[in-house]
């Protein structure tokens, strides 16, 4: 299997490599028309994401005297430092790395299109994203239909019953026991190890019962996320006064393409969230990379009111190129790298 001479050929055919090249060119043209500045930031960093669901690769260069440099899981932190310094719209098409993520839709090394718009929030950013996607869809000869907007609150309530989702941050978004019972009643497998982890129960429910309801002939913006899953987004209230993370995810059918935030600009709140994630990592016996103090200093210096979104370029190519496996749009998947 590995190292043999018979695994040298590429996974993607030439048509799909061309599609990826066209996507990059179209994205650059769209950004240039809107005066969004292309930037390049370091792939290797002294700090890393401490999100409890992300694991970073590390390398130990001679230059640091033994301290690891971490391969970015997204270019978000350095791009926010640029935003704090210059307050202009930015984008980057960057290689990113996530350890332990491999499957039909995952490669540990992939390409992220990430952009930030000053003065936008997550709602106006959805329009911005739709505008770019419409261009890419039409260019690929795909029918473009107006995107759906759906709220996690409403979709989960539709599955579990009205009022199943908490409207405040004081209680878990969903009751794990209620989710477990829903799975049991339908003969679906629910991992015992989820225990009383309300976030994990919510994510399982999402994957098994909510996402399959999303239309597969158009883009859906899923908003109204649990405040506990805010990560680097602001927490606010939706139009019904329910507390939500000001964040959306972008889907075509069940396939997630990207993730957008109304960016949190409060350095103190961001530090509390990082510490909470580190605590969870310690409790789980996981690696605890250093918190990005330069990001926190940039937030303290003042991040302009902005919204940002990250889209997986390979996933986009999978949708537009009709690929069933991510290896079909990658020159070389992880095992052939």
């Amino acid at each position, binding site marked *: 299997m590995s190292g043999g001479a018979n695994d040298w050929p590429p996974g993607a055919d030439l048509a799909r490599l061309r599609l990826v090249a066209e996507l990059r060119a179209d994205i650059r043209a769209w950004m240039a028309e809107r005066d969004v500045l292309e930037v390049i930031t370091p792939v290797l960093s002294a700090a890393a994401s401490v999100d409890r669901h992300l694991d970073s690769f590390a390398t130990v260069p001679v230059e640091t005297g033994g301290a690891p440099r971490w391969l970015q899981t997204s270019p978000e932190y350095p791009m926010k430092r640029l935003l704090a310094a210059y307050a202009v719209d930015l984008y980057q098409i960057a290689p990113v790395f996530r350890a332990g*993520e491999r499957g039909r839709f995952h490669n540990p090394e992939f390409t992220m299109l990430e952009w930030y718009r000053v003065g936008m929030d997550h709602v106006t950013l959805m329009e911005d994203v739709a505008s770019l996607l419409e261009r890419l869809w039409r260019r690929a000869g795909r029918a473009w239909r107006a995107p759906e907007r759906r709220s996690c609150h409403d979709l989960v309530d539709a599955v579990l019953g009205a009022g199943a989702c908490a409207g405040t941050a004081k209680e878990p978004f969903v009751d794990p026991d209620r989710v477990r019972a829903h799975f049991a009643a339908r003969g679906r497998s629910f991992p015992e190890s989820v225990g009383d982890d309300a976030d994990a129960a919510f994510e399982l429910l999402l994957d098994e019962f909510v*996402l399959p309801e999303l239309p597969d002939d158009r883009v859906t913006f899923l908003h109204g996320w649990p405040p506990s899953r805010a990560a680097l987004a602001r927490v606010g209230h939706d139009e019904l006064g329910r507390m939500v993370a000001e964040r959306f995810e972008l889907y075509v059918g069940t396939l997630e393409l990207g993730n957008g935030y109304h960016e949190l600009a409060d350095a103190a709140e961001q530090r509390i969230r990082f510490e909470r994630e580190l605590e969870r990592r310690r409790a789980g016996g996981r690696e605890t990379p250093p918190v990005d103090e330069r990001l926190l200093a940039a937030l303290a210096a003042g991040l302009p009111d902005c919204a940002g979104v990250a889209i997986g370029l390979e996933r986009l190519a999978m949708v537009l190129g009709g690929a069933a496996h991510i290896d079909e749009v990658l020159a070389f998947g992880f095992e052939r790298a």
Partner: protein
Amino acid sequence: MANHSTNEFKGGLKIMLDGDPHAIVSNEFVKPGKGQAFTRTRVRNLKTGRVVERTFKSGDTVESADVMDTKMQYLYSDGEAWHFMDPDTYEQLEAGKAAIGDAHLWLLDGAECEVTLYNGQPLAVTPPNFVEMVIKETDPGLRGDTATGGTKPAHMESGAVVKVPLFIEEGEKIRIDTRTGEYVSRVK
């Protein structure tokens, strides 16, 4: 007994679930909502043959099953049990009806089979992927009809029934794919 973490999961891995040995048929990594990652699997209960879905949290560990696949030679059947021999040690084992399943349809004397042992006892028997058998009975052939796609049932000595092209005759030897039970070619 060793444990396997979800990141070691792959098709064919043998694991213990609910006290029974299972084989992983397929597995998929999912990570909904940028949150907890899960591994969705389809697993086959090696005792009952039933395939069920099972979801694990990424990082969960499961006990590996003491299941071993060994090459053994099929000797004979006495109607109740099917007898196999280890070609290296000459040790003999017998597999009952539950373990043999449908495999008996494809067993020719002396055939090298894969016998799955669980705690040293035969759990399942996998015949060779391809076998060559003589047709005992089938409707008369249509001479020269090698082009049209029609088929007819042919009965083998072993009791197996295989769909064969119309031009195949009684007494002819054919090659069969035992995994699908389908005719592959005529053997000259």
